């Protein structure tokens, strides 16, 4: 049953994106700036040296994950909008479980994430990032991207259940996403951080997504088991919490 709703919601997302194409393009402006401006500049100052890879390559997985997480973290807005219209009410009367709705809706954010991946990886090639194009690596990367977008989207639905208005949600979303990004290994290795931030970063799911993508796409190795386990746990927890709170959104 969940598979059924996953397909349905992915189709919904794809069809909506087709009519709102502009959104897709504007969403990639920011990551391209990070890659094309921030990366080369920091690289030239040699402020952060990573043995074995150039700085642009180091941050590419971080920028990719960041852009996916930002989009996913605002997925709750859709749910708030739908609870203000009658769509959510209607969905609750369809013979699928609440969990299936959460899983379906949050997994549908893969549609946007894949599009971002398809733009950001080629752009990064232009600034000198060499991605390992082994199909297995690419496939696993897509899996990581899927776990990332799904986990953060369901987290976003969970958060939305407490906010209930778009304005409050926007405020909190802004307040969460940037710290999440900076307190991760997206832009610099964890060991250069102050100890407290290092602790936070080691519980930050974003770090695990970045770490595994870096292993797969840049370093070309399979050391991702720990990351995948952590991300799976993160997904289970968020989907569980969002499902419990989903009834509250409906009321």
């Amino acid at each position, binding site marked *: *049953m969940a598979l*059924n*709703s996953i*397909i*349905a919601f992915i*189709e*919904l997302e794809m*069809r*909506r994106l087709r*009519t*709102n194409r502009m959104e897709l393009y504007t969403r990639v402006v920011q990551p391209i700036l990070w890659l094309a401006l921030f990366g080369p500049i920091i690289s030239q100052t040699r402020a952060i040296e990573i043995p074995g890879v150039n700085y642009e390559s180091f941050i590419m997985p971080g920028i990719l994950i960041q852009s996916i997480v930002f989009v996913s973290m605002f997925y709750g807005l859709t749910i708030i909008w739908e609870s*203000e*219209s*009658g*769509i959510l*009410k*209607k*969905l*609750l*009367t*369809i*013979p*699928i*479980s609440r969990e299936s709705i959460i899983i379906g809706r949050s997994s549908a954010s893969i549609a946007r994430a894949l599009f971002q991946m398809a733009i950001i990886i080629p752009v990064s090639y232009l600034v000198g990032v060499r991605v390992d194009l082994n199909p297995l690596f690419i496939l696993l990367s897509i899996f990581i991207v899927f776990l990332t977008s799904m986990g953060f989207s369901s987290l976003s639905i969970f958060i939305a259940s407490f906010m209930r208005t778009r304005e409050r949600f926007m405020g909190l979303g802004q307040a969460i996403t940037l710290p999440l990004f900076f307190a991760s290994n997206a832009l610099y290795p964890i060991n250069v951080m102050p100890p407290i931030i290092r602790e936070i970063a080691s519980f930050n799911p974003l770090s695990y997504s970045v770490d595994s993508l870096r292993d797969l796409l840049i370093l070309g190795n399979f050391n991702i088991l720990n990351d995948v386990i952590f991300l799976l746990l993160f997904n289970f927890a968020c989907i569980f919490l969002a499902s419990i709170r989903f*009834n509250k959104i*409906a*009321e």
Partner: protein
Amino acid sequence: MDSFFAIEVSGLTKVYNNSFTALNGVDLEVHQGEVFSLLGPNGAGKTTLMRILTTQIKPSSGVAKVFGYDVLTQGSKVREIIGYVPQEFSVWTDLTAYENLRVYSRLYNINDKRKIYELLDFMDLSDFSNKTVKTFSGGMIRRLEIACALLTEPKVLFLDEPTIGLDPAARQNVWKRLKGLNDEKGITIFFNTHYIEEAELYSKRVAIINKGKVIKVGKVEELKKDLGFEVISLRVGNVEKALAILNSFSKKVSHNGKVIDLFVSDAEAMIAKVIKALENEGVEVERASIHKPTLEEVFISQVKKEETIRGKISEIRNIRRAVRRG
């Protein structure tokens, strides 16, 4: 199969956040194949009741069954046999009519494109199937929503204020299709409305609800009869003499100039006798007419009876909040 009601509700209550009582002991029975309306002012509890019946929210106490299935313990069974159109938009306005039906049919796990085209045709939307819903009129959106609710061929259709905000022609058009569904396929229709004429025109039976309680239920005709009066208005030549005669027909007679109002229980059966009696005594009857109460008069007499002055802002705010939620 026919041994149970389409909808059966007893002792149903719903209290929001331990503070606002939206439903206060509702009992209701809706027969299979019936068109039934729940009529009440805004904030009366109509939407809350419908949301409980469609398994969206749980009642605080009491029992509600749809075709024998308990909404609390057999929610998934209930969801399989109902169609539902909420008061607010339930379609994605940035998709086309076809796409909306397609997404809903996937969610219902129906992979039959013919069904989609059939419904578009039935709802008179075939020419617009590839237009985005944004460009639709209110009536077209409603018809599309009803089409979405019909994908599973439901046994009961729940409609929350189905024609709110529609112009009279669009309203009639929507009801033409709904009537068709009821007549041809025997689908039970349960709808909420605060438009009295809508309840009167389209439903077989009506429940009047106010402040979370059903205060009257029955056939439209019966409800009107319960009010206890129909009026025979007569314009006569000799008022004094006429009044003396008419007093034997009814306890309640009033007059205004040359016009006399005679309150009776069945005006059509009485009018000939009354006129004959008057003319036998030499009273000339210049004009005669019958006035029957409308459902509106029934409604107002029932609701006003209960209405106290509730102008307090805090209470209005409470109701609004609950309505928005419920």
